[in-house]
């Protein structure tokens, strides 16, 4: 035991002496490993930062929310108001927000604008998106119930309809109905990515009216799109199951009559995609590591032939083949490990700089460091094995004669 230990120690000391005495060559040899590990560490760290960033954004945007798309069947295109009441009464549902959308021509006293996106929502939607209203007020429950003809404009619609004049209290006519402007929407409507994706940007801008009013206006009797908000995210699955049951019975168990999008499962999908991408990138970076490993192998083979006499002498002095092999193996592991450590430092530096530039959070990941250390040690063993084996099988006579 003590013999083994002292042998390890000696091999370690010898390796360091040898590596140090040819610094330049050793450095160039480990450069491949340095580049490979740097790439892997930087990629993993950056991807992890990006993942946590995306996750945070998704969480802010829509956990505890189920989006229902219900085109319905040929006989029943969408959900009736009774269905909505049923859904609203599912346990742990905090509120539902139906949405109706159409494109129409809007008219003010001074202008005529075509292609305005008219969205119908209820008060729950505004409660859930508090930053939506820039000036004025949001829609209230009363607006919905008594079908008040009130309207909120976004900045584009405001500009086109009122040319910068204060629109508050003024009127807008849509399909013969007169609406009173009660508020202006903020530009920072990025909180609802999904809504943005659904509504194509129209030139005329976007306005919001009570959905009940819009239903009357367009003659739509059924709702085909709504958001269901859950009181707490722990109930999401349970609510989704109840919702499923409710929708099935509403559409008589027809296939493809509805679709429920769970923001959390969307998040899971996103996570899976990001980690797949990380794996792919790490795989590509591993090629650099492979090339680095070949460099180490080459250097070790050169070292073995350069030190043939030394190997012969050590054998003459009583070194067993295994001990010679150990010494060269340790040397190659030290080489590639030192490359790995330099790579870890460089990789973390690169990803830190990236996080500063891209304004992402910087997370030092323990698994990335373990990956770097593990990879480089593995490369040292894998590519040092053959040269070390070659050294150990050298015939001491031939080795000593080569002087």
């Amino acid at each position: 035991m003590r013999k083994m230990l002292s042998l390890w120690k000696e091999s370690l000391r010898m390796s360091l002496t040898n590596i140090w005495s040819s610094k330049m060559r050793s450095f160039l040899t480990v450069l491949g490993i340095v580049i490979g590990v740097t790439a892997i560490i930087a990629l993993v760290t950056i991807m992890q930062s990006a993942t946590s960033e995306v996750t945070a954004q998704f969480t802010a945007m829509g956990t505890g929310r189920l989006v229902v798309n219900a085109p319905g069947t040929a006989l029943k295109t969408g959900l009736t108001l009774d269905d909505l009441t049923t859904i609203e009464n599912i346990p742990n549902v905090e509120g539902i927000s139906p949405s109706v959308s159409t494109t129409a021509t809007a008219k003010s006293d001074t202008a005529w604008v075509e292609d305005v996106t008219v969205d119908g929502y209820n008060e729950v939607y505004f409660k859930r998106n508090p930053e939506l209203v820039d000036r004025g007020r949001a829609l209230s429950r009363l607006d919905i119930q008594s079908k008040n003809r009130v309207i909120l404009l976004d900045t584009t619609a405001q500009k086109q309809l009122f040319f910068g004049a204060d629109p508050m209290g003024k009127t807008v006519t849509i399909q013969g109905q007169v609406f009173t402007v009660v508020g202006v929407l903020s530009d920072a409507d990025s909180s609802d990515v999904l809504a943005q994706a659904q509504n194509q940007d129209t030139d005329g801008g976007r306005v919001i009216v009570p959905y009940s009013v819009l239903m009357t206006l367009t003659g739509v009797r059924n709702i085909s799109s709504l958001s269901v908000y859950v009181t707490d995210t722990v109930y999401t699955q349970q609510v989704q199951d109840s919702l499923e049951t409710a929708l099935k019975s509403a559409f008589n168990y027809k296939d493809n009559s509805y679709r429920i999008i769970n923001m959390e499962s969307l998040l899971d999908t996103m996570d899976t995609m990001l980690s797949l991408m990380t794996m792919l990138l790490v795989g590509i970076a591993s090629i650099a590591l492979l090339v680095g490993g070949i460099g180490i192998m080459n250097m070790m083979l050169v070292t073995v032939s350069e030190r043939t006499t030394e190997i012969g002498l050590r054998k003459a002095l009583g070194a067993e083949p295994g001990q010679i092999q150990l010494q060269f193996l340790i040397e190659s592991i030290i080489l590639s490990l030192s490359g790995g450590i330099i790579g870890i430092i460089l990789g973390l530096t690169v990803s830190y700089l990236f996080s500063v530039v891209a304004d992402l959070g910087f997370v030092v990941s323990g698994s990335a460091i373990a990956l770097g250390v593990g990879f480089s040690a593995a490369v040292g063993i894998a590519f040092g094995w053959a040269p070390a084996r070659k050294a150990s099988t050298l015939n001491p006579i031939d080795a000593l004669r080569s002087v």
Partner: protein
Amino acid sequence: MTNDFFRMTGIVKRYQMGDDLQTVLKGIDLEVQEGEFLSVLGPSGSGKSTLMNIVGCLDTPTEGTYILRGRDVAKLDAKQLAAIRNREIGFVFQSFQLLPRLDALRNVELPLIYGGMSERDRLERAEEMLVRVGLKEKLHHRPNQLSGGQQQRVAIARALANNPSILLADEPTGALDQATGKQVMELFSQISAEGRTIIMITHDLAIARHARRIVHILDGMLQEGEANHFAQDA
């Protein structure tokens, strides 16, 4: 009388050289008593290097038995041979064979590492050996800071470090000038006087004469005594 310290009987060594099977040693019988100082004298190509490799357990014979301290070395595997070389044989080479990156002390320490001694004991022992060969002042000099004679002294200290049964020297003065060579030979005589067995291989009769017994090797065969026709080689 049989001798279990060192006895070679019918040693034959053949090498495959291309298509030829060459017989380098053709039945060597040799006995060495403990404490003897023996020279093996022979010209190049006589098989003396091959004989030295077999004596030094660097190589095994094709045929024959070689008993060293009661064990038949011809039957041992690589690992066992390594252990024998470590404990029983101290090598001194013509070109010293010191590791250039290590100082004198670390060079002498080498065989002790493979012997499994603790570092403190190793350095103590190595220093003791270097003092003994008269290099007390040169413990931390590297080989390139030492003269040829000093380097060979370091090599001798290294050979003696593990207290081997046999000191095996291959042309120990071959790379030295005459005066230095003489000093090294005096050191050998001293070591012999202390009772250590020495086997020295050389082609130089003047050097061989430092030994108390000389055997000749010619064309793979041994011959006892100082034959006249070798004198011309000297």
